[in-house]
């Protein structure tokens, strides 16, 4: 077989991984959380059952729902899958990775969020508008900080292409870099905010005044809800693997090393499992913070990212 096609095959494999592993990660986190709280869990496969149930169910649409409301789930889902094709998850040898760098990736996530917020406001319920405005507040504060955090890694690796960044960190000499440490802590805080986990948002709330993400999805049902839910699971998975690719890329298959793929899957599974443990450890310890404290939380993330960038110039 011609080795020219390997990158394309790997790309396809990776997209399939994103689609299938995201519900697994969500299930793993729910399972761990149940265990930690002394409840019996529904098993790691429960998100798949939820999704397939939602796909079978009928869709109920509000009378005044416009085309934005009906098309938003497809846009959100598509943008998230596209992001999944860009981030080096199992291999840095991705054809699509050359088309979009890290700035474009942040923009793709922004498109998904923009349509989600529009859809939240479209039907005109109070909860939808509230959730959309809060989501935009989080986004406007988290995005600059996210760019700062990612730019610090860019400065260290001298490129903005994700594949090259992962490759540079992987093959470079191991040195103590305070800038990367700051950028990593900032990235963790931002990932918590972006994926709507505790303490910024609680993913398992329905009809609470404090909810952000769920408030925008309240009017969705059936397959559209399934797509939205699946997209948000993928977002969690993608932010985890983006953090892995930027800060702990060891284990991701390099260029022209197809034999590394099984090892890459193994290391991905281990890293994701550890991330799940970390998320659950944070979530069972912390309470959700007040909405007015979120700007301060994100301001701290921005501060850390800036300190990371400054300490690159000052100390390295």
């Amino acid at each position, binding site marked *: 077989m011609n080795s020219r096609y390997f990158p394309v095959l790997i790309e396809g494999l990776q997209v399939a991984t994103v689609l299938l592993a995201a519900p697994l990660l969500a299930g793993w986190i729910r399972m761990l959380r149940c265990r930690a709280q002394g409840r019996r869990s529904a098993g790691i496969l429960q998100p798949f059952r939820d999704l397939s149930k939602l796909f079978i169910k009928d869709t109920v649409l509000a009378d005044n729902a416009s085309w934005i409301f009906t098309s938003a789930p497809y846009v959100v889902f598509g943008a998230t899958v596209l992001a999944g094709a860009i981030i080096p998850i199992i291999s840095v040898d991705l054809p699509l990775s050359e088309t979009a760098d890290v700035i474009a990736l942040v923009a793709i996530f922004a498109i998904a969020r923009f349509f989600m917020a529009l859809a939240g406001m479209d039907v005109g319920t109070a909860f939808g508008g509230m959730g959309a405005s809060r989501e935009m507040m989080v986004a406007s504060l988290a995005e600059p900080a996210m760019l700062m955090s990612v730019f610090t890694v860019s400065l260290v690796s001298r490129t903005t292409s994700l594949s090259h960044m992962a490759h540079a960190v992987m093959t470079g000499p191991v040195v*103590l870099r*305070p800038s990367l440490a700051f950028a990593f802590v900032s990235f963790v805080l931002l990932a918590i905010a972006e994926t709507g986990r505790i303490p910024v948002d609680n993913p398992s709330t329905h009809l609470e005044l404090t909810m952000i993400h769920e408030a925008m999805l309240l009017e969705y049902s059936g397959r559209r809800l399934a797509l939205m839910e699946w997209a948000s699971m993928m977002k969690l998975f993608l932010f985890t693997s983006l953090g892995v690719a930027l800060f702990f890329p060891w284990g991701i298959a390099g260029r022209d090393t197809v034999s590394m793929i099984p090892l890459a899957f193994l290391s991905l599974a281990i890293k994701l499992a550890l991330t799940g443990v970390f998320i659950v450890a944070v979530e069972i310890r912390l309470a959700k913070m007040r909405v007015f404290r979120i700007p301060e939380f994100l301001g701290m993330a921005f501060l850390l990212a800036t*300190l990371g960038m400054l300490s690159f110039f*000052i100390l390295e």
Partner: protein
Amino acid sequence: MTTNLAAEINGVLAALILLSSFGLLVQRRMTGLLHIFAWQGFFLSLSTAVVGYTAGLHHLYISAVLTLTLKVFALPYILYVLIHKLKIHREVEEVVNIPTTMLIGIALVIFSYHLTAPIRELSTLVTRSTLAVALATVLLGLLMMITRKKAVTQIIGFLALENGLFFAATSATYGMPLVVELGVALDILIAAFIFGIFFFQIRTTFDSLDLKQLEKLKEEDF
């Protein structure tokens, strides 16, 4: 330990000192402030020991131990006892709100980096790059003194400023002579006791530690 590794470790410690200065700026609780201050002293003492080891200057070990006993244990303990006696556990009151303070702090770091850039070019020491952090720590301590209303937080700002000066001395010239350092350490200790007496005086006179009250000393108020 090679010189390179020592410079790297020193860089990490400098970054942690800078982080703890920002921690002091954003922390709202009194006991939290004291913990961060103690951590800053701990990083400072470690950094002094690392510099002493690399440069082969053994009197820096004495300064490191001095920093450890004084700034990690003695001073936070004295302040802790003071806070308990004065019964102030409420949130820190600030003049400028915390996000703005953070942004001013970032600007100060950039400013001090710009200011120390020429010195960095001239110096040949392992620690030359940490000088900007030292200056930033001094400025951030000053910023903390300016933006806080209560006397205790201003004192912590002052002590953080002193930490910055000490760090500057280590990173610019491998530390001051031991006699000077002993003198400074004693001064700080005495200062902490005097601050304590002052806190009680201020509170018995004004029923509050808010230094805004001192403005009432003007004659027309009587």
